[in-house]
C-alpha cells in the first residue's frame, strides 16, 4: 500500500543523537531566549517607573525563571548521573520526519504564490504519488477533490475567504 510503513520498525538504524545531547542544545537555546527577554525587559524598564511597574517589570522575572530553569536542565543533561542517554531519534526516523517536514515547508512557500487551494491540491497529489506510490490519476483526483471541498466549505458556505496567493490562480472564480 505505501512505503512509509514498516521502515521505521528497523531499529538497527544508527542513532542521530542522544536525548541528553538534544536536551543540552535545547537548554542553551532556551537560555539564550531567557537572556534576550531579560535584556529587552531592562531596555523597556524593568523597575518602577513614575506611575507604577514598567513594561519590563513582569517579563524580567519571566526571563529570570527561563534562564535559571534552563541552567537546571543543562545541569541535568550534562552533569547529573540520571541524565537520559536514550536515543533521541535514529537516522531512519529523522529521514521519516524530514520527509514530511520538508515538503510541508515547500508547500507553505508555494502557498505564498498560488494560494491555499491550488497549493493544497498539488501538495496532496504529490505527497500521495511520492510517499504513498499511488497512481498519478488517483492522486490528482483526490487532491483536487479535497481542495474543491474546502473551497466550497470556506468561500461558499461559511463565507470565510482564504489566502489566494500573489498570483491568484483561482481569481477567475470571482471569490
Amino acid at each position, binding site marked *: 500500500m505505501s512505503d512509509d510503513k514498516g521502515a521505521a*520498525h528497523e531499529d538497527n538504524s544508527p542513532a542521530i543523537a542522544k536525548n541528553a545531547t538534544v536536551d543540552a542544545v535545547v537548554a542553551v537555546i532556551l537560555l539564550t531566549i531567557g537572556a534576550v527577554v531579560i535584556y529587552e525587559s531592562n531596555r523597556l524598564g524593568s523597575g518602577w517607573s513614575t506611575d507604577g511597574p514598567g513594561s519590563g517589570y513582569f517579563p524580567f522575572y519571566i526571563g529570570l525563571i527561563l534562564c535559571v530553569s534552563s541552567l537546571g536542565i543543562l545541569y541535568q543533561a550534562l552533569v547529573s548521573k540520571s541524565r537520559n542517554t536514550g536515543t533521541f531519534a535514529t537516522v531512519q526516523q529523522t529521514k521519516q520526519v524530514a520527509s514530511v517536514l520538508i515538503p510541508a515547508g515547500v508547500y507553505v512557500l508555494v502557498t505564498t504564490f498560488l494560494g491555499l487551494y491550488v497549493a493544497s491540491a498539488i*501538495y496532496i497529489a504529490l505527497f500521495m504519488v511520492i510517499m504513498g506510490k499511488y497512481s498519478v490519476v488517483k492522486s490528482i483526483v483526490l487532491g483536487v477533490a479535497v481542495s474543491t471541498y474546502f473551497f466550497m466549505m470556506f468561500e461558499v458556505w461559511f463565507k470565510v475567504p482564504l489566502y489566494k496567493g500573489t498570483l491568484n490562480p483561482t481569481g477567475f472564480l470571482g471569490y
Partner: protein
Amino acid sequence: MEELNSLFHGFAVISTPMNLGLMVLGIVLGVLIGVLPGLGGANGVAILLPLTFSMSPTSAIVMLSCIYWGALFGGAITSILFNIPGEPWSVATTFDGYPLAQKGKAGQALTAAFTSSFIGAFVAVVMITFLAPLVAKFALKFGAPEFFSVYLLTFCSFVGMGKGSPFKTLVAMALGFALAAVGMDTVTGQLRMTFGFQELMRGFDFLIAVIGLFGIGEILLSMEEGLEFKGKSAKINSKVVWETWKELPRYWATSLRSSFVGIWMGITPGGATPASFMSYGLAKKMSRTGNKFGTGEVEGIVAPETAAHAAGTAAMLPMLALGIPGSPTAAVLLGGLLIWGLQPGPLLFVEQKDFVWGLIASMYLGNLVGLIVVLTTVPLFASILRIPFSIIAPVIIVVCAIGAYTVNNAMFDIWLMLVFGVMGYVFKKLDYPIAPLVLALVLGAKAEDSFRQAMLVSQGDLGIMFANPLVGSITTLALLMLLWPLISWVLAKVRTPKVDELAAQRPVD
C-alpha cells in the same frame, strides 16, 4: 433551587433545531478529530473556531464544546481497536481495552468505555451545575491580588503535580509567558520584544501555537513511528450493549471513585491524562480482580475512561467561574469567548445567563447525544483509521494550515505554525509538558495585568500576596505546589519511596 430553574432555562435556550443540529455536527466532527492522528480536542477546536465567528455565541459554544466531548469519546475508539491512543488521556484505556478487543470482545470494551465516559461527564456536569455559580459568586469579591494568586496556584500546580523534570515544566511555562508578552503592552502602549519586525506587533496568537504544537508536532511524531494500523474490527449491536450495561452496575464503586478523581484533577489543572492513570492505578489496587488488570478487565476500562471524561468536563468549571481554563482545550474555548465579545470570569454568570446556562445544559444534552452517536457509528469511524497515512498526513497538514491562516488572515502565521510544530515535536520527545506553555500563552496578559494592578496597589510590596487570609492561603498553597518536587525529594531521602508502576507509560501532557 435557583440553579435548577436556570438550568431549565438553559435547556430552553438550546432546544432549537439549529442548536441541536450543531450539537450532532459537533459530536461527529469531534469523534473524527479524536480518531485522526494529529488532530485532538485542543487544535481541532482551534481550527474550527473561525467557522463560528458569524454564529451567536451560544450556538458557537454549543458546537465547539460538543467537538470537545466528541474528541473525548473518539480517543477510546483508537485505543481499544488499534492499541494506538488517539489522545494522551486514552493511553490508560489501551491497557485493558486492546486485550479485550484481541479476545473478540471489542464491542463490549467500546460500550463500557463510552458508557463510563458518559457517566464521568454526567457526574462532573452535575457538580458544575451546583458548584460553578457558588464559585463565581465567591469570586466576585476577588481583587487583583486574589486573581493573581489563583493564576499562581494554577501554574504552580503544574510543577507540583506534573511528571518529569520540574525545570522543564517551569521553562515551558516561562516560555509561554514570554511569548505572550511579545507585541503591544496593553498598559503603557510600548512595543515589547518585537525587535523591529512588523509581524511580531500582533504578538503570538495562542491558536497558532496550539495548532502547531499539537497538530503538526503530532503528525511528525506519528511519521517517525511509521504508523501501521492493524485494527480489530468492531461490531456493536444492541445485544452487546445491553449485556455490557447489565454488567456495569457491578463497578459502581470504581465509577464513583474515578469520577471524583477526575473532577478533582480537572478543576485543579492536573488534567485528564494524570486523572486517567491515577484512577486506573487506584482501581487496580482496590479491585478484587486487580491482579487480572492488563489482561482485558472491563473494570480496567471503566476506571480511566470515567476519570478522563470527568476531568475533561470539570476543566470547564474554573474557565466559566474564574476565567481560568483547566486544560488546553478549555483555554481554546476561553479564547473563543473573547473573540465572540464575552468577558470570561465571575461576571459571566450575572451578565450572560443565557450563554452560561445554555452551555451547561448543552453539556448534559451533548454527552447524551454523544453516547448515542458513538454507539451507533463506531464501525464508520474505525474504517477512517484504515485510510493510509500517506493520504491522511497531507490532508491534516492542509487543514492545520487553513486553520492557522483563518485566525488572523496572515500568511506569516502558517510559517509560525510550522515552527511551533517542530518545537512541539522536540518538546514531546524530550518530555517537556506542552499544557503549561499553552495556558501561559493564553493567560499571560491577564496574569500580568493582575500582577501589575496588585503591585500598583501595594506600591511594589510583594507582601500584598499575604495581606488577608484568603489571598495568603492561596499563595501559600501555590508556593507549596511549586516546592513540592523539592519536598518529595527530601521525603524520598528520608523514607523508601513507593514505586509508581505506571510512571513509565504515562505521557507528559
